[in-house]
């Protein structure tokens, strides 16, 4: 598909779906091998390939209205996400900054706790879900606002 100079819209969607499946398989494989670097590198390469493939599409995928919907949804998502991200980050930063002041007993001194990787994973999952659901929600809202589901009388 990629060796052609141009691509149709439906071919691009099919290609993107195949790429998503490959990434899902690689994700599973990297979980099995316990090597996060594999899926991280594959994800970046996969997204780059999709962006490059998108440039070869000849039909219209995105015009100014859909670009505006994407833009508005992205800005609103950022506005919501940074608040959630900062709130969670403040909690984690507070943990690393915890220093007991003037302990009366020696037993009161405890070593600083480092967030275990599994907990960090859950935290990232929550943030990722927050970002995705917020974006999808705003996208639906702005798509509706700018007439995506208007009924045509033609």
């Amino acid at each position, binding site marked *: 598909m990629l060796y052609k100079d141009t691509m149709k819209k439906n071919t691009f969607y099919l290609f993107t779906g195949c790429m998503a499946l490959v990434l899902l398989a690689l994700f599973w494989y990297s979980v099995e091998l316990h090597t996060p670097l594999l899926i991280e590198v594959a994800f970046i390469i996969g997204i780059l390939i999709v962006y490059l493939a998108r440039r070869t599409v000849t039909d*219209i995928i995105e015009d*100014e*209205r859909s670009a505006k919907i994407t833009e508005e949804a992205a800005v609103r998502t950022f506005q919501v996400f940074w608040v959630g991200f900062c709130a969670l980050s403040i909690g984690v930063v507070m943990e690393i900054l915890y220093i007991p002041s003037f302990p009366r007993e020696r037993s009161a001194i405890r070593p600083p706790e480092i967030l275990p990787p599994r907990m960090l994973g859950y935290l990232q999952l929550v943030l990722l879900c927050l970002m995705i659901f917020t974006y999808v929600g705003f996208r639906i809202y702005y798509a509706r606002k*700018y007439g995506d589901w*208007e009924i045509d009388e033609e």
Partner: protein
Amino acid sequence: MKNKIKVFRAMHDLTQEDLAQATGVTRQTILAIEKGKYVPSLDLAFKISRHFNVNVEEVFQYSDSVRTVDVD
């Protein structure tokens, strides 16, 4: 922003799809503009009016009721 795209389309016997292809947007965008759900950019407004061989003011009319800004 009001517009007479539908009227001009009827005069030129054009479908939404024809106009969309001629101006490089999707049919849904033409529909959204006609319904007043989306205000086109200046670039697209000029493209549409040029396609009908008229001035942009003949196709699009600015309506004061949309938004009023107090200068003072």
